[in-house]
């Protein structure tokens, strides 16, 4: 009889129940005692059907074991020993995927000089100071970019303004937004706007503009004064906290149409997730806080070393417990990283590419070059056309082919590949010099974090499943009060 072993899945426990997360389908299934006993038994070593029946005879009848084995085999949570690996087929889109989001780098200049910045720091890709890209996007390029977005998008288009410091080129926003609205109306499409800013240049006129056009605003901020002032400095070395805090409060007071989020860069020296979260939500009033470990080549002073990722994970787990408690009571909690991962788990997202860069999302440089995303905008090596000539479909097809998760051998045996698919291209480029490599330096972190979120998902699914309605397409989010 053929021996059975665990299949391509991850078993976990939540709220006293057992679950499996299946790869590559990303299905989450609750399993009963008999199935759990089967999986536990084969996890120790492979067992044949007869051995399983014998091993579990005290607790489960042979018929029950047979049935459980049959069901587990059919969903591929159990597999036969020595069965050759069957890779998921590599399916490439046959027709172009509509552009959903265009990130427009309106300038590559910045009034801060954060030491970890990927655009100006030691790991930069694009020659931002004396390169071929202009410092400021012109109105003409902005117009061509908007036309490009509305030409390539489906019914709904998202336009994100980015920098450098985006608001250094507020002039081009003032031009592009009304132009985009008018063009979208002519074409019968919907368009919305967002931007990322360091908040140093917010002033009443700008706040009014953001509120009037209902911008989704994300503010780059690292936390309370001492942490913010470690890296987010002006060119003269002065910290930016005291300048940005009152401006952020003024923005919150006026702009209430959409939730305002904070984006925190975590470094070795600013690793205090709970304190940062508490400060940004309670003191400054952010609705949501997202944390991202700094992108960095290994060995940089601010880089998170091996132990650093473990520490981030431990702190994330701690704060994620608060999110879970709030969710069980149906309350909002602003820990964006959990929220985002739960959304992906609920939908059962199984990614062929780690993100939409290169097809659903494109970055546009100040000159109008189209690139994978804003982090590559202006890099000749990662160019996918330009806004005037359109997307270079040959380059795009080659990109999708070479970056498919099926090409990433290391990922084929990882149960977390449906949510990760190898991780950020820019991170990989910084670490390994190529966007094609999976980010092997944070595999343990991704698996640990996905496991944490799966447990939370299981607990919420047991006690308050209605919480997940917000992740479904027809749901309308409540506005922050």
């Amino acid at each position: 009889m053929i021996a059975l072993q665990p299949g391509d899945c991850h078993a976990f426990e939540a709220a006293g129940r057992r679950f499996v997360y299946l790869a590559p389908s990303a299905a989450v299934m609750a399993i009963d005692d008999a199935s759990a006993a089967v999986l536990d038994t084969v996890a120790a070593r492979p067992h044949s059907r007869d051995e399983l029946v014998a091993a579990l005879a005290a607790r489960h009848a042979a018929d029950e074991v047979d049935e459980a084995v049959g069901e587990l085999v059919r969903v591929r949570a159990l597999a036969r020993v020595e069965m050759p690996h069957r890779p998921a087929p590599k399916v490439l889109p046959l027709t172009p995927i509509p552009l959903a989001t265009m990130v427009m780098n309106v300038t590559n200049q910045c009034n801060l000089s954060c030491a970890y910045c990927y655009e100006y720091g030691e790991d930069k890709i694009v020659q931002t100071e004396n390169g071929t890209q202009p410092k400021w996007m012109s109105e003409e390029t902005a117009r061509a970019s908007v036309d490009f977005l509305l030409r390539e998008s489906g019914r709904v288009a998202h336009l994100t303004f980015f920098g450098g410091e985006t608001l250094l080129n507020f002039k081009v926003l003032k031009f592009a937004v009304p132009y985009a609205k008018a063009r979208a109306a002519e074409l019968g499409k919907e368009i919305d706007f967002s931007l990322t800013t360091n908040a140093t240049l917010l002033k009443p006129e700008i706040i009014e503009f953001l509120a009037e056009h209902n911008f989704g605003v994300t503010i780059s901020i690292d936390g309370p004064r001492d942490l913010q002032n470690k890296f987010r400095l002006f060119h003269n070395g002065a910290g930016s906290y005291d300048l940005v805090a009152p401006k952020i409060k003024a923005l919150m007071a006026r702009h209430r149409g959409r939730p305002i989020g904070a984006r925190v860069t975590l470094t070795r020296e600013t690793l205090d997730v709970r304190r940062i979260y508490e400060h940004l939500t309670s003191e400054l009033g952010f609705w949501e806080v997202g944390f991202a470990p700094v992108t960095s080549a290994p060995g940089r002073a601010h880089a998170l070393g091996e132990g650093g990722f473990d520490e981030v994970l431990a702190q994330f787990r701690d704060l994620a417990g608060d999110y879970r408690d709030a969710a069980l009571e149906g309350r909002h909690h602003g820990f964006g990283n959990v929220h985002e991962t739960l959304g992906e788990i609920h939908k059962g997202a199984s990614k062929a590419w780690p993100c939409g860069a290169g097809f659903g999302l494109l970055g546009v440089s100040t000159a109008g070059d189209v690139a994978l995303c804003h982090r590559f905008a202006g890099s000749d090596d990662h160019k996918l056309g330009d806004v005037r000539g359109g997307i270079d479909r040959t380059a795009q097809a080659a990109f999708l082919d070479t970056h498919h998760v099926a090409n990433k051998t290391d990922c084929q045996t990882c149960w977390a590949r449906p949510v990760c698919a190898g991780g950020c291209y820019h991170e990989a480029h910084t670490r390994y010099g190529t966007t094609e490599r999976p980010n092997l330096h944070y595999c343990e972190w991704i698996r640990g974090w996905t496991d944490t979120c799966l447990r939370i998902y299981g607990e919420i699914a047991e006690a308050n499943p209605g919480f997940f309605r917000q992740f479904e397409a027809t749901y309308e989010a409540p506005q922050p009060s």
Partner: protein
Amino acid sequence: MKHLSPVNDKARRVMNAIEPGAAPAQAGASLADASPKSSAEAGDVVALQQPRAPQQPPGPHIPLGCATIFSPGWEVDRTGGTAGLCQPVERDLFDCHFGCYWPAQVPDQLNHAPTWTGKCAAAQKDWRKIDLIFP
């Protein structure tokens, strides 16, 4: 399904793909395997000694040998059936193994799988103990 229950939407779609209608209404099913077999036997080795093997569809079964040269008394009996074989059909395994000119049908017992038949003392009785070997 009795032992597994879907939690997220994708799990419902997977179940509906396996057994149409198994999980409550979500769109998008199914490339279905239309003949559900929720038993461990679904993946078992099929042999003629079983009264009717679970993987075999009902209807006429025509036994076929492995070679173009017919070795009488092994594949079919003189009536064309399998009831009167002079040796059980499982004996074929060892015919290929020892006497046949086509050694690729069995594992390489010198190098790759020296203990392949270690648990099989008598082919008629013990053939199930011979495991599949994948190259």
